[in-house]
């Protein structure tokens, strides 16, 4: 059994109580859950096929038949939003996963070997990636490999790596000076074991908060890339692509532009509210300081 040194006052059961008391967190959770549910349900059922054309009924406003109306080809916008949720969430989630899986070990290694050549190399490489905004990485990748959802994931994922590397290095550095880490070192544990068994569990809260924030940024980045044609390619519906198609129709059929935009705003808002709420729940001191 692995003993995990948990710092006092961070007991999981108190989190649940704090979560139920935080209205912004609960709102964020509900919104996020709705979009997750839409995405999952879209695998089994959508009101119409998202690709079914119905030209005679194109650009119809919201009605009982088509809850969110139809687009310029008569496709059902509600179905497209459902499938689009799937695309956006998948791209953003995998991209955050790339950031965590690559960035966190790098950050932990840099902190464990603070001041070493390894630390220096990792941090300088981070600085380098930071000089390339996600969109520029996407531009470089698509210039060579062509546009697509996978390339969007890679671009946003690369952008996420330094975020998580820096965060985990910073959080780990303060822990390395603590007594319980010293105790583990005295007990003969190596830096890898200490990082995995003692540092990681104690920075998990910080990481979870950042994951929700980067998830939200990922949704925005994916929408932006899809909008300029560097993301998922047709016929796969994506919110950004729907907005790009709606741009020329905005005065004719405003709902085609407003609904996908609202979907993005709500998803991002939900994730951000959840992230802010989590931060307050995990760190009650922060909450007191802010007030």
């Amino acid at each position, binding site marked *: 059994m692995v003993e995990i040194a948990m710092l006092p006052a961070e007991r999981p059961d108190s989190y649940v109580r704090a979560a139920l008391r935080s209205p912004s967190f609960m709102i964020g959770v509900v919104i996020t859950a709705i979009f997750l549910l839409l995405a999952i349900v879209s695998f089994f059922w959508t009101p119409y096929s998202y690709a079914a054309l119905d030209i005679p009924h194109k650009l119809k406003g919201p009605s009982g038949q088509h809850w969110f109306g139809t687009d310029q080809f008569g496709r059902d916008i509600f179905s497209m939003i459902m499938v689009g949720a799937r695309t956006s969430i998948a791209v953003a989630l995998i991209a955050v996963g790339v950031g965590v899986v690559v960035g966190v070990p790098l950050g932990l290694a840099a902190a464990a070997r603070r001041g070493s050549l390894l630390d220096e190399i990792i941090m*300088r490489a981070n*600085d*380098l990636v930071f*000089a*390339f*905004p*996600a*969109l*520029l990485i996407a*531009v*470089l*990748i*698509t*210039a*060579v490999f062509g546009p697509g959802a996978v390339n969007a994931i890679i671009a946003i994922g690369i952008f996420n790596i330094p975020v998580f590397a820096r965060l985990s290095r910073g959080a780990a550095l303060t822990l390395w000076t603590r007594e319980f880490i010293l105790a583990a070192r005295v007990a003969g544990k190596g830096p890898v074991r200490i990082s995995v068994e003692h540092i990681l569990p104690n920075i998990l809260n910080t990481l979870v908060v950042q994951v929700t924030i980067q998830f*939200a940024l990922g949704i*925005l980045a994916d*929408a*932006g890339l899809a*909008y*300029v*044609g*560097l993301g998922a390619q047709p016929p796969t519906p994506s919110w*950004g692509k729907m*907005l790009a198609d*709606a*741009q020329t129709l*905005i*005065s004719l059929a*405003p709902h085609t*532009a*407003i609904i*996908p*935009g609202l979907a*993005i*705003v*709500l998803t*991002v*808002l939900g994730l*951000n*509210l959840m992230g*802010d709420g989590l931060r307050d729940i995990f760190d009650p001191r922060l909450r007191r*300081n*802010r*007030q």
Partner: protein
Amino acid sequence: MGGGWAALAGGLMPAFLLGRLASLILSLIAASVVIFLILEVVPGDPAQFMLGMNAEPQTLAALREQLGLNGSLLSRYLGWVFGMLHGDFGISYTYRTPVSGLIADRLVVSLPLAIYALALTLLISFPAGIFAAARRNSRADLTVMGATQLGVAVPNFWFAMLLVLLFAVTLRWFGAGGFPGWGDPWLALRALTLPAIALALPQASILTRVMRSALLDTLGEDYIRSARAKGLSGRQTLWRHALRNALIPVLTIIGLQFSFLLAGAIIIENVFFLPGLGRLVFQGITQRDLIVVKSVVMLLVFAVIFVNFLVDLSYAAIDPRLRRRR
């Protein structure tokens, strides 16, 4: 703050300046190597890549010659870098004109747009952040914070579309897109106004939050209590002491935001059909004009790195303690 800049310029801390300068140059070299590797080495044969599979052998040979592909990798890289240092960015394959000219034409749209948006960002976020911090936890503070929460969630290109719908299509106060050139500066600024607002909204929301929390952090410090104890009013302490100390985190974010503004401009230019660097880079991608893509990306990355270098220097100007550290 003026004294800080004088100290910087007066060479009181050349080691700090030299260190920053060395890291600036190293970052630029590293970035240029990355861009070169991705665009010139990964595709295998860039000439074949640009022309497609059915290219005539003569055209292929001519393009190879033009790209200098017959030389070694190192000489190609050095040729590119030293060319750029002399303002020679190569000849665009699709436009058949020097890339430097194309970039110059586009820069007069993109750069003013980014600066306009940054100015709007500062104009909105400084007052809003200070206001919210001064009245923390009041209803006004909550309203400002709620608005920023919404502001960071709105994709700027969608916000841009809504602005067009309201101000261009419905009210007809602004044009829906296009750029008339700088012949009439008033018309040019008018054409950039909606794009700048769209770009500024999310950044202003972020910066307002940063400003507010940085102020609240410094307001909790001991020297603030001392300032209050010596008889300064809450407002005086805020303006004289807290604001200056809150500037460090705020400046960091402004530096980062400039890169987001430049990158964001790439997307926003597409909404408003502005002939800026963003349009140029997308045309470069669709036409597989790697010469254009390579130079524009390098230029944007240079801008990001250089702005962050300036931010580093300004830290030292604001906070003399940071000068001694390195």
